[in-house]
């Protein structure tokens, strides 16, 4: 296993009265696509927020690319896509990306590059508010790709996309790892799990498993990843 891009140790997060993560530890390998899977409410987004450094944590530690999460040094090295498309609805696609490129100090040529990467070249002059949910999500993803980050943290990037686009995006993710980029991608769709090098299965804030899809199949004797997940839950109980 190569060096860990992310190391989470005994992470405890409480939001309001609810303990979201009671004490989570995990690692994400550099240059891999790691899938963070789990049902809605399992703590996926909270873990991702802790990794990008915007989540208040009670105890434990999160190290990212050799720095504590949230360090100023990391801010130009992480691309983060939130679950809700965090782009300005009353600006055009191009204006959004130019704005974020300025904030990130990225060259304006990066705007054309990322529009190509998410197949949105034809939408540059369109207002984001007039786009569909999937198109908005792609604009949000494009913004995360602007600075060619070392780590991409993507919260459900493929929700609502048609199968062809989903396949294209996963090809893009793998292409990025060839340049050493690490990706952590959350999803609640099990059929995307097969495209990941490693999987983190999360349920009710605890880690059920951390292994490659092939290894999980071998361990549980199940072929379908949905069954694998069920099997792992049963083992716990």
């Amino acid at each position: 296993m190569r060096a860990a891009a992310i190391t989470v140790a005994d992470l405890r997060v409480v939001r309001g009265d609810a303990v979201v993560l009671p004490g989570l530890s995990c690692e994400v390998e550099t240059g891999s696509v790691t899938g963070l899977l789990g049902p809605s409410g399992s703590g996926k987004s909270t873990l991702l927020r802790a990794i990008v450094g915007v989540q208040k944590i009670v105890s434990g530690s999160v190290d990212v690319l050799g720095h504590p999460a949230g360090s100023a040094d990391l801010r130009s090295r992480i691309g983060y896509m939130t679950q809700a498309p965090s782009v300005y609805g009353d600006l055009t696609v191009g204006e959004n990306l130019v704005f974020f490129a300025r904030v990130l100090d990225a060259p304006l040529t990066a705007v054309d590059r990322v529009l190509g990467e998410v197949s949105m070249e034809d939408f540059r002059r369109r207002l984001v508010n007039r786009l569909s949910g999937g198109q908005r999500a792609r604009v949000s993803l494009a913004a995360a790709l602007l600075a060619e980050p070392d780590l991409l943290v993507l919260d459900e990037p493929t929700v609502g996309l048609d199968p062809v686009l989903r396949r294209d995006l996963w090809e893009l993710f793998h292409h990025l790892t060839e340049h050493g980029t690490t990706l952590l991608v959350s999803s609640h769709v099990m059929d995307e799990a097969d495209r990941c090098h490693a999987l983190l299965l999360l349920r009710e804030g605890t880690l059920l498993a951390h292994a490659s899809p092939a290894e999980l199949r071998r361990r549980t004797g199940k072929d379908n990843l949905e069954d694998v997940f069920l099997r792992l839950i049963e083992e716990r109980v």
Partner: protein
Amino acid sequence: MVSQLRRDPRTIALIVGVPCVLMVLLQQLFGRHSPVFQEVGTPMLGLFPFITMFLVTSVTMLRERTSGTLERLMTMPLHKIDIVAGYGIAFALVAVVQATVVSLLALGLLGLSVAGPNWLVVVLAVANAVLGSTLGLFVSAFAETEFQAVQFMPAVVLPQILLCGLFVARDQMATWLRAISYALPLTYAYDALARTGADEINDVWFAIDCLVVTGSIVLAIALGAATLRRRTA
């Protein structure tokens, strides 16, 4: 931010048009040559930008907080003061347009006469707008929905308007009310404009007014930046 507004012509029309209509109403209500219009007209040129900018900023900033764009910006190499200052500058630009149009209308067509220099009226009106927008930015931290944000207008702005000296001259107020009025920034903004209208800008109080308004803007920016948290619960 400015390009956001550019795409929203209705908001622009409201920001610039509403104060113009209100000024016309004010003039018609009291009459062109009435001492009341001549007296309150000048400070009104500052009050309108203060109110509109307070509202526009608190709602825009709330949208930024709830849409996730603020969270994204917080993961980027950007200082918190950049965000606040960026908003301050963007709204100041809008305020320049608003204050200029309303002042031209009032001083030209409506026959408002200002004893002090006219450009000073515009500068003070812009300062009022910036004060309004920095306060709006600060209070937006305490609102969770747009309904709440709009309610901060009567809660934060109206008491200041009641006590700033517009309705009752401050030296005729009950002592405790006057004491409160000293603590409210709009009091000084109002007083500065009133003194410009009455040509009392060489008065030491005018200098104090300007200092307090500037200080309040700086304080509101600092408080606003402090409410922007990188980490949230």
